[in-house]
């Protein structure tokens, strides 16, 4: 299966197989009016299988979302058909406005204007906790 290469845009590579759709959704790519390709279960020498997302526009991509969903994925910026930057994305220490606290007793459940902020509390187990009530994100 072939997907045309892009001239100007973003390629998120080395996504763990199965995470592509979640990343697509959390990055809000469904709201974009540009071509976006999600390629699932691509054979990879390093990973066995991987997902890839190609965005046919030079748009800013939220690093923290990629780092939260799939640390180790790489973000490639393409300009004039050339790879101008390639970066492995790490887990962010803080997540702002990406996920919501599900704890009904949390102050964010009643004061909707509060920013949803989570902090990384266990890097090994990838645990993020709400800064307000300290409930772990699901």
């Amino acid at each position, binding site marked *: 299966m072939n997907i045309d290469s892009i001239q100007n845009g973003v390629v998120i590579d080395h996504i763990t197989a199965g995470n592509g759709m979640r990343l697509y959704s959390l990055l809000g790519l469904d709201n974009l009016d540009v071509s976006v390709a999600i390629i699932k279960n691509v054979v990879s020498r390093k990973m066995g299988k991987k997902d890839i997302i190609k965005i046919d526009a030079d748009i800013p991509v939220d690093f923290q979302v990629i780092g939260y969903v799939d640390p180790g994925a790489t973000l490639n910026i393409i300009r004039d058909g050339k790879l101008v930057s390639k970066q492995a994305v790490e887990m962010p220490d803080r997540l702002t406005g990406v996920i919501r606290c599900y*704890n009904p*007793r*949390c*102050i*964010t*459940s*009643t*004061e909707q*204007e*509060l920013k949803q902020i989570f902090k990384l*509390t*266990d890097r090994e187990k990838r645990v993020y906790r*709400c*800064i*307000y*009530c*300290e*409930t*772990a994100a699901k």
Partner: protein
Amino acid sequence: MRSVIDILDLTTEELEGLMATALDIVARPDDYAEVCRRKKLATLFFEPSTRTRMSFEAAMYELGGNVISMSSAASSSAAKGESVADTAKVVSCYADIIAIRHPKEGAALVAAENADVPVINAGDGGHCHPTQTLADLLTIRREKGAFEGLTVGLCGDLKFGRTVHSLINALSRYRDVRFVLISPEELKVPSYVKRDVLKKQGIPYQQTTSLEDAIPDLDILYMTRVQRERFFNEEDYLRLKDSYILTPEKLRGAKKDMAILHPLPRVNEISVAIDADPRACYFKQVLNGKFMRMALILMLLKEAGTI
């Protein structure tokens, strides 16, 4: 602006400093009778808590300061839909320091992020209640002299009891403290507390369901209430509730100098017959809470440059 939301906001040195100040207040109350003159504490209690509120108010009055508060949450601006953030900003204009209690977890942090004066968390739902832990620490210090080498039994609801988790966090900073966690299976200390605090720091602990078996080893027995609503079915509650009630019979096997603590209010988990026992320290704990709140108010007002 420095605020205290969680017991973890205070370093071990600060805990020691607060206890030293509190003990100095006990020894020389007159020296502190005017230190907060013309300063105001605002007590924002969005849910009823007579004891904690009165403790803060008594603390501020004994420092020579004044107290302003809202008459009840129902008549407050919150009832009209004002956010905690806005309330904190407004009250900052009137008061030098704020003590807030709110049913929602994290509300005190929101207040602290928005206030221009120090904020003390006086309880945010089931989340944190740092001044209760300060009361617990001073009580243990006054009763036992030191934390090092103590065997501390925590009994009752160890799953939802916020005071228990805070106390484990605070005491874990001291050498050779050992914990005995006494609870029904349904209400054991959550695994993240054991993993992140006890195991991580190599602190010895044992878990048991039997208060009688555990009691002879304990230097401190910290009782909490086993609440009916925490159980999935009535049968389990009825089966277990009496196991975690401290009676003179159960106390027979305990050390002669064991200290019994309870964050209060108690319902029936400590028999009234024990109140006269010299080991009962839960009413002293209330008094110690006031002294520690005085020390904390002083520390924060000094840091803010208010006094």
